[in-house]
């Protein structure tokens, strides 16, 4: 007793270091994760100088340095490094990437004539160009000072041609195909029901569509032919001649000639393509617009579904339900729902939403479609609606718990004042409690959104695909197609990282996609937080 009360220093103060340590470890991990993703994700789009390396065994390598690591088996005190070059020209080299022992690299030079190419097929290429054969037959040698501008002009022309071609094949032919499918289903139905009036009309419609299809095909071919003349004659690292048609080229740059501004422009152009364009080459190149759009739409829909459900449920639980064992069991169940693994919700979504609900909708409203279109389901298969519903169910407990907390945090005095003024319970809830607890409810919705936007496992079962032919949104009524399958950033990361045939080529895209997913979630959250702060400002001074 005496000894312990001697000291004037407060006891237990050392715990502040212990608790601080916990925070530091947590912060360190978060910052580490974010900076890793940020650095790896951003540098994907940056074009560094590309070396020409002479190797001991007589080989020459032209390629962008992708990685450097300690060679497996080398001694810890005398580490030996190896380098991975992205050499491109997959169709010639068999592989886009090459590992080389650093010790065996004799010289590395950065000649100005190394040309980097992004191509429609077979990934990128690093070559030494010799001459440009233009569409009009002129040949411009590399020594000509006008070579670069002529090359860029031809590349731009090729891009325009390709966009025209895409427009025809993807959209116009796609529309014809869709109309044709509809007409064929209608024809089968008419034949089955012996609707003598309709059959000839539909036959004529189908003939007309087939005619249009043939015309569009021809037009597309014409477009392709118009741009197929120009070629780029080059040599690869080994000195082999490589002739690259310009229709194959997406982007061309001289990595060793660019100044910082040029590199920045290239960076911006690549980043722009990444965000606003559609993917190419089994998703390993091109953009992610469909996935960004899909993630965004799905998350917004999920929030729109989960908020009313959760708030209504919480109002009943908190304001109307009789306190007792049943209410306690319900609360415990709701809390446990938050801990159920997400894949379980996916299985439930598939079994109930897709098969039972979707199947019933098809039976009721799309029976013709089922009968005359080889049993092709409309809602009875995975889709945007079922993904949103499944995730809404998964995030429901978050919103319920947050709303209950927010309702119980409304000062008792405010509730009493409302009731004492002669307001009914419902009026009190609607006019006083809900506005006052709106910021708290939004906090729940923010948490739900953050969880929902990053969820992948259940979506794989109920409607996310690797490559969706169309966006869930277009100009055909009803504009938003909740039955369509869609692409999702989270699934894209998984698909790139684990399902890609060329994992080396996919690796940078994994980081870039991850960065984009994080950025999207952060953006959504900032939006919701902004709304919440505006609401809070309205109730400034009130006790919540």
């Amino acid at each position, binding site marked *: 007793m005496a000894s312990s009360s001697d000291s004037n220093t407060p006891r237990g103060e050392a715990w502040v270091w212990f608790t601080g340590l916990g925070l530091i470890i947590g912060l360190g991990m978060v910052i580490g994760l974010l900076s890793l993703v940020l650095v790896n994700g951003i540098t994907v789009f940056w074009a560094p100088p590309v070396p020409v390396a002479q190797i001991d065994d007589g080989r020459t390598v032209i390629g962008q340095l992708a990685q450097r690591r300690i060679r497996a088996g080398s001694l810890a005190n005398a580490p030996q490094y190896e380098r991975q070059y992205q050499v491109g020209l997959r169709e010639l080299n068999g592989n886009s990437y090459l590992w080389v022992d650093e010790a065996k690299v004799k010289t590395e030079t950065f000649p100005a004539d190394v040309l980097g190419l992004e191509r429609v097929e077979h990934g990128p290429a690093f070559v030494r160009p010799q001459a440009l054969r233009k569409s009009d037959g002129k040949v411009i040698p590399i020594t000509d000072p006008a070579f670069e501008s002529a090359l860029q002009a031809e590349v731009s022309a090729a891009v325009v041609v390709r966009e025209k071609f895409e427009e025809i094949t993807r959209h116009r032919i796609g529309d014809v195909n869709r109309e044709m499918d509809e007409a064929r289903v209608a024809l089968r139905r008419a034949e089955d029901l012996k609707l003598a009036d309709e059959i000839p009309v539909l036959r004529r419609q189908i003939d007309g569509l087939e005619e249009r299809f043939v015309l569009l095909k021809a037009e597309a071919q014409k477009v392709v032919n118009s741009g197929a003349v120009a070629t780029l004659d080059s040599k690869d690292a080994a000195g082999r001649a490589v002739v690259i048609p310009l229709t194959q080229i997406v982007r061309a740059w001289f990595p060793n000639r660019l100044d910082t501004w040029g590199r920045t422009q290239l960076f911006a152009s690549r980043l722009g393509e990444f965000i606003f364009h559609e993917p190419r080459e089994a998703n390993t190149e091109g953009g992610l617009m469909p996935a960004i759009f899909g993630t965004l739409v799905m998350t917004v829909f999920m929030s729109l579904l989960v908020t009313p459900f959760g708030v209504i449920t919480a109002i009943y639980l908190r304001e109307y339900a009789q306190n007792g064992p049943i209410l306690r069991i319900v609360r415990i169940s709701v809390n446990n729902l938050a801990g159920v693994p997400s894949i379980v919700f996916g299985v439930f979504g598939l079994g109930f939403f897709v098969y039972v609900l979707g199947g019933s909708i098809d039976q009721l409203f799309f029976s013709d479609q089922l009968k005359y279109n080889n049993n092709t389901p409309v809602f009875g298969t995975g889709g945007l609606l079922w993904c949103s519903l499944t995730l809404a169910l998964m995030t429901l407990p978050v919103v319920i718990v947050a709303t209950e907390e927010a309702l119980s945090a409304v000062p008792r*005095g405010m509730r*009493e*004042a409302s009731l004492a*003024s*002669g307001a009914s319970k419902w009026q009190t809830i609607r006019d006083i409690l809900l506005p006052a607890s709106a910021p708290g409810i939004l906090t729940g919705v923010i948490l739900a959104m953050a969880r929902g936007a990053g969820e992948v496992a259940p979506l794989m079962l109920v409607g996310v695909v690797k490559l969706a032919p169309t966006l869930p949104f277009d100009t055909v009524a009803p504009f938003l197609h909740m039955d369509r399958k869609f692409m999702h950033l989270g699934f894209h990361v998984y698909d790139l990282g684990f399902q890609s045939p060329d994992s080396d080529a996919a690796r940078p895209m994994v980081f870039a996609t991850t960065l984009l997913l994080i950025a999207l979630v952060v953006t959504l959250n900032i939006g919701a937080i902004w709304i919440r702060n505006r609401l809070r400002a309205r109730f*400034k001074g*009130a006790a919540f």
Partner: protein
Amino acid sequence: MNPSTSRIQVRPSAEREGRKDYISIRDYGFWYGQKKALDAISLDIPERQVVAFIGPSGCGKSTLLRNLNRMNDLVDGISHEGDITINGRSIYDPGLEVISLRRRVGMVFQKSNPFPKSVYENVVFALRVMGVRDRSILDEACETSLRKAALWDEVKDRLQDSALGLSGGQMQRLCIARAIANRPEILLMDEPCSALDPIATGKIEELIHELKEQFTIVIVTHSMQQAARVSDRTAFFYLGKQIEYDTTEKIFMNPSQAQTEAYISGRFG
């Protein structure tokens, strides 16, 4: 608290017209679960008078007040015996909606509790929940109530501003304006000045004097001076029992019970 009874000023009570047993409490007992909070209360409150409930903390005075408009219905596990009638009708009459009771019995709370809405919306809240939509009626009720609550001149230019920007005293007067906006017959005040400074308290007490021309007021207070200043009749409670109920003059000048005298002179409580 001032220990001497002689220094408490008692305002002479002017008997006004009105029913003597406007609020009538008969053999009233009240339980929170197993705990008996009120026991055998019987008192009559005359129309358009101010009645003060005094007593030490936990004596049941607030409980009784909150039963007059059945605010205690919010609490789980309550029960009562006896009866309370207002103008001859029991407040526990199954045919009487508790909402219509509360529309006739306004209430002002210890802690001012304006809604996080504009001043205007606070005042007309009771009318809005009754379904009044006519803008002119609402405007008129707003002005009348704020004038009665002696707040109009201070807030008439900021009716659309948030009520949470007012000062403590203004907020409490706003709550009074809100309570009288739908013209109740009775006004219950649960220690309305306990969180206010003396100037704001003075204003509220002035207000009570003016309001009793129209309303029957029941006020719970911890301040003996306040009870003496504002009330016509005073009831003293102790441990859930009604010790004494009489005119304020009698209670403060010549109480019949020793406990009452001990309490108001500050010897206990």
